[in-house]
């Protein structure tokens, strides 16, 4: 089995200055943030060459002016690579990864409805868990949405 | 399977006749929390730590009274854990369901009476 450090070395070597941030807080955890343009290529490398076949989930984080997308990829059920990049909040669009990892379909839908990120090329980008009739432009997990406001919307509906 | 099923005929039913026959709970069961107002010093730790907002302090310090909302309580016993004076204990009371939420307020007064 490959070591966590080996993988991070290989990633460093391959990506060079496309890396925004790379952390290795403990064994079997890698946090890697790349530039938006380099994400697709990185993912192809990670899935194709490093063998990270399992996508655990996609997390979207509202950073204020940007939305960060974190893809938690798992190798051999042991090493978690959290691959992230940011999209601007005004125009949060990125390409879908469903062609590379088919099971991302649900996770992308979830991020889309919760944070309003558009995944170009996604086969069916409709809300996953929010109720029918939920307003189009209300994304609950964005920081500017308050809890009380969301409850009001849910009650009015 | 047939043998297994046949054997059951000569066994006592595993279910109990619950409302007629009281269910027992083990020691350490987390039932409805009960306050001892003689011990309470009004530190408000229980209120601040309660995950479901079931505890409300009325007044301050030694004069405070405790409002406990049974309908919000999740019986986690975090309040028991944080209480510095051990003024809260979890009772073994568990048949707490009801139809009226307004009856589920327990108001612990300083005088020791409970509304």
């Amino acid at each position, binding site marked *: 089995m490959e070591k966590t450090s080996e993988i991070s070395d290989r990633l460093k070597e391959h990506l060079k200055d496309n890396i925004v941030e790379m952390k290795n807080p403990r064994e079997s955890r890698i946090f890697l943030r790349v530039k938006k343009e380099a994400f697709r290529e990185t993912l192809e490398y990670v899935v194709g060459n490093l063998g990270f076949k399992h996508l655990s989930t996609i997390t979207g984080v509202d950073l204020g002016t940007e939305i960060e997308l974190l893809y938690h990829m798992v190798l051999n059920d042991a090493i978690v690579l959290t691959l992230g990049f940011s999209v601007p909040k005004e125009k949060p669009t990125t390409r879908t990864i469903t062609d590379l990892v088919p099971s991302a379909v649900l996770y992308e839908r979830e991020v889309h409805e919760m944070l309003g990120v558009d995944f170009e090329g996604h086969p069916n980008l409709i809300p996953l868990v929010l109720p029918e009739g939920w307003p189009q432009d209300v994304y609950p997990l964005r920081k500017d949405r308050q809890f009380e406001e969301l409850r009001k919307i849910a009650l009015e509906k | *399977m*047939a043998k297994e*099923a*046949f054997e*059951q*005929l000569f066994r006592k*039913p*595993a*279910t109990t006749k619950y409302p007629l026959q009281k269910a027992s709970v083990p020691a350490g069961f987390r039932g409805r929390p009960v306050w001892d107002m003689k011990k309470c010093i009004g530190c408000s730790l229980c209120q601040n730590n309660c995950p479901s907002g079931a505890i409300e302090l009325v007044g301050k310090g030694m004069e405070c009274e405790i409002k406990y909302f049974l309908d919000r309580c999740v019986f986690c016993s975090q309040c028991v854990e944080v209480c510095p004076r051990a003024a809260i204990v979890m009772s073994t009371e568990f048949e707490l369901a009801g139809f009226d939420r307004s009856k589920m307020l327990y108001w612990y007064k300083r005088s020791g009476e409970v509304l």
Partner: protein
Amino acid sequence: MSAIEAAEILVFPGLLFLIVLAFFYEWVDRKFFARVQNRCGPLFAGPAGLFQPFADFVKLISKEDIVPAACDKILFDATPIFYFALPLTALFLVPIATQSALIAFDGDLIFMMFIFALIVITVFLAGWSSMNRFSIIGAVRAALQMLSYEIPLALAMIGPALAAGSLSISAIAQWQSSHASWGLWLQPIGFGTAIICMLAELEFVPFDIPEAETEIVAGWRTEFSGRKLALFKLGRDFELVLASALITSLFLGGAQQVGIIPPIIMFLLKTIPVILLFSFLRSIFARLRIDQMTSGMWKYLVPIAILQLLLILLGIGK
């Protein structure tokens, strides 16, 4: 019609007695089923929950009767009555209180088979008329199921008739008592076939395919509520009585007079074990799929039933 005849039809062993018996047998079935599963079963209504089926019936009668907008109103109203009346009619053909049934004629066995077919047709119409996806699937399954168990059932019922040389149920029962030999000992294969087919007729596990709860909600009964459902439930209980009574008459010697014991006691003593057998069988299997059920019936049960007939024709089991 004399007063006695009227009393016979309406009270004993007619309508009223049969209703009480139907509730009682449902209770026996439920209680036994529960005990096999290590549960208490009905408990609160009456001693040991004896009145629970009746309480359920009263409760259902008092409930709102919801009629779906899309249903066929006439059929939707009529089928519960048919479903309740058909097994009741059939029960008059079976000897209960005396050695001969209330209505007995040569050929009533054929009439009985006809009623069994009618019951399933009623079920089919009930499901079809409610215009619900689950009901229609259940109705089609019921019809398909009937096609597979009707033949072996008829073959199994013909066995005792051949042995007794009569097509009257009462005559078959009397032939067994006069020969002091039950169909069960003479034709065990036929008895087994009949039990299996009756399980299918009663829609008991493993043949509860038309109303498979976890697949199609309540199958053909999905849309029925209130008093219609109450009638269906009562009809089901009648069917239970009918199945056990028929098995008793054809294979267990029927309601015999043994010494001073009146036929009615013998009838009860014989039908209750049959109910328990049904109850036990339905507790130890998983539900089959409709294709598995159909192919199983045609591949195995029909040849077995024919084998029994051949044995009788060869003189074994007469």
